[in-house]
């Protein structure tokens, strides 16, 4: 088993005042997997995302990315380490064009500063061109190249989701963390999204996915963790999860 573990999170606890939002959550994701995180509403999935990407500070937990510990203390450090995320409510830079949005994604892997901006010497110009080219490549990869110069606010909902994914990919992440990318999509759009995710997996990327559409998840994910009330109640292959009585009870609401 020479599978490389991309993400290894153990023992995450997070309390908000009187509410224990996360209890002892562990996750291990191997390279190239699509890993799903499911659970009823309010189970703590987005909270978990926010913790591992540095938006919330955990009470306890150990965090390792590709074998190296990382500190989830600041979102930009997490991005630099190699986790890129999208948001449940889509957070694009609405007044920028699609291309510019993705170009911002390249920020963390480039370094031209004030002097490069003002004097535009050769290295700076070269980097700027590379940023632009790579951004166009990514727009093409997710299928919205023709909207490169459109203000992102004016894109269709499905295209905005794709754009957010392209922007996240621009950071050259080790792990792509997607928060409900299929929310609000119709069946056709979901199929398109599924294709895109499979394509991304095909490039060797690792994906951590939160979703509510259980059918989509079962068909797409290699492994899943199920959260309920902040606690992991099941972990394993889709087939195992589907048969797990605790999972069924959590979703059908026996005794909540």
């Amino acid at each position, binding site marked *: 088993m020479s599978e490389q573990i991309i993400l290894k999170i153990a023992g995450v606890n997070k309390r908000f005042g009187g509410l224990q939002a996360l209890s002892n959550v562990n996750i291990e994701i191997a390279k190239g997997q699509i890993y799903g995180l499911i659970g009823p509403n309010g189970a703590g999935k987005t909270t978990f995302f926010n913790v591992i*990407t*540095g*938006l919330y500070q955990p009470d306890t937990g150990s965090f390792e990315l590709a074998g190296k510990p990382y500190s989830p203390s*600041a*979102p*930009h450090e*997490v*991005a*630099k380490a190699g986790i*890129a*995320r999208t*948001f449940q*409510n*889509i*957070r*694009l*830079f*609405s*007044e*920028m*064009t699609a291309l*510019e949005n993705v*170009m*911002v*994604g*390249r*920020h*963390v*892997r*480039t370094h*031209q*500063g*004030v002097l*490069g*901006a*003002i004097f*535009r010497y050769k290295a700076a110009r070269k*980097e*700027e061109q590379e*940023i632009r080219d790579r951004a166009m490549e990514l727009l093409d990869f997710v299928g919205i190249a*023709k*909207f490169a*110069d*459109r*203000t992102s606010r*004016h*894109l*269709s*909902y*499905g295209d*905005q989701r794709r754009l957010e994914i392209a*922007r*996240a990919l621009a*950071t050259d992440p080790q792990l792509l963390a997607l928060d409900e990318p299929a*929310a*609000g*999509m*119709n069946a056709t*759009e979901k199929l398109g999204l599924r294709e895109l995710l499979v394509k991304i997996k095909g490039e060797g990327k690792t994906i951590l996915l939160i979703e509510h559409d259980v059918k989509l998840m079962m068909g797409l994910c290699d492994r899943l963790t199920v959260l309920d009330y902040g606690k992991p109640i099941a972990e394993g292959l889709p087939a195992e999860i589907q048969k797990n009585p605790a999972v069924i009870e959590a979703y059908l609401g026996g005794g909540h």
Partner: protein
Amino acid sequence: MALHFDIKKNPTKAYTSFALLAVVAVAFPFIAANFGNSWVRIIDFALLYIMLALGLNIVVGFAGLLDLGYIAFYAVGAYTTALLASPQFAVVLESFVNQYPPIGNFLMTVFGPEIAQNGIHLSVWLIVPIAAAVAAFFGALLGAPTLKLRGDYLAIVTLGFGEIIRIFLNNLNGPVNITNGPQGINMIEPIRIFGVSLAGEAGSMATIQIGGFSIPSVNAYYFLFLALCIGIVLVTSRLQHSRLGRAWVAIREDEIAAKAMGINTRNVKLLAFSMGASFGGISGSMFAAFQGFVSPESFTLMESIIILAMVVLGGMGHIPGVILGSIILAALPEVLRHVVEPVQKLLFGHVIIDAEILRQLLYGLAMVLIMLNRPAGLWPAPKHEDRPDADIDKPERATGVVAA
């Protein structure tokens, strides 16, 4: 707009527009001279305001940080220049010697008898970078506590800083005299370029003689300030279309998403403050040398608000718009003064609404009317879809839930 500045999309039109502007700009002082020197002087001050507005545009327009204390950097640049180009430093040293002899004597040995007698007199080539650097430092200093604050609070805290600076300038004449308090610092040297003083030699009635030519001092300053403005326009424009510029806009649009994409928002915001402040400092430096004296009265909250009004009126974030807003709000009050007061005298026999009141009315109305009716400003950045040559089809309607 008949003027087009987009070099990439339509070079011919862009360069023609620039050429047209250049002709107008160069010819202006010579034409205006026919109506008296005061018009050129007014535009000289307008150019200073343009520099300030362009600097504030970085902070407010690009990065979206509402700084209500921006005038502090103008003050810093002006007073730095005042201390480095007038007899004031001699006074500073003397008062240290009187009040705190150990420190005073140490400083005397450092600076020497020449400075103790006459003060510091550096050349403009040194003073301007120093003023810019000092202002940039203050920009970071005053920006640092505001990094976690949201819009309203950021505004008030920066306002507070602006006031604190003004209060210090007004009161640092005791126990040691650094700023000379409410009286301000005078006898600031005019700008000397290659030995020629832009204020003209004594007794020349503010006219410069070069070779066989004579040119009024205000005209010389006009070209100097124009050159500086053009420089600042170029620099801010380049900043805008760069990795840093995109980072600023990203922070403005959605700070959390910006962080998630790896932008170190703390550093990027500090850069916005510093760069914006440095332009304020340069402008302040020019102001001090041009006017020959500085006093705390020139650096009130009202001035900060005026500069903000210029940015807002013109079009936040859009450089040509900001220049337009500056020209309108700097020159219009003066134009009105020359028109409205005589008219009132004619109609009513005396002036009911004087120029000062008119000026303030204009600023207040500008801000209110623009925000209520045209919040993007008089000349906002053209939308990408509105460009005549945009190669996309009509924007599609959203098919699902609109993004939050």
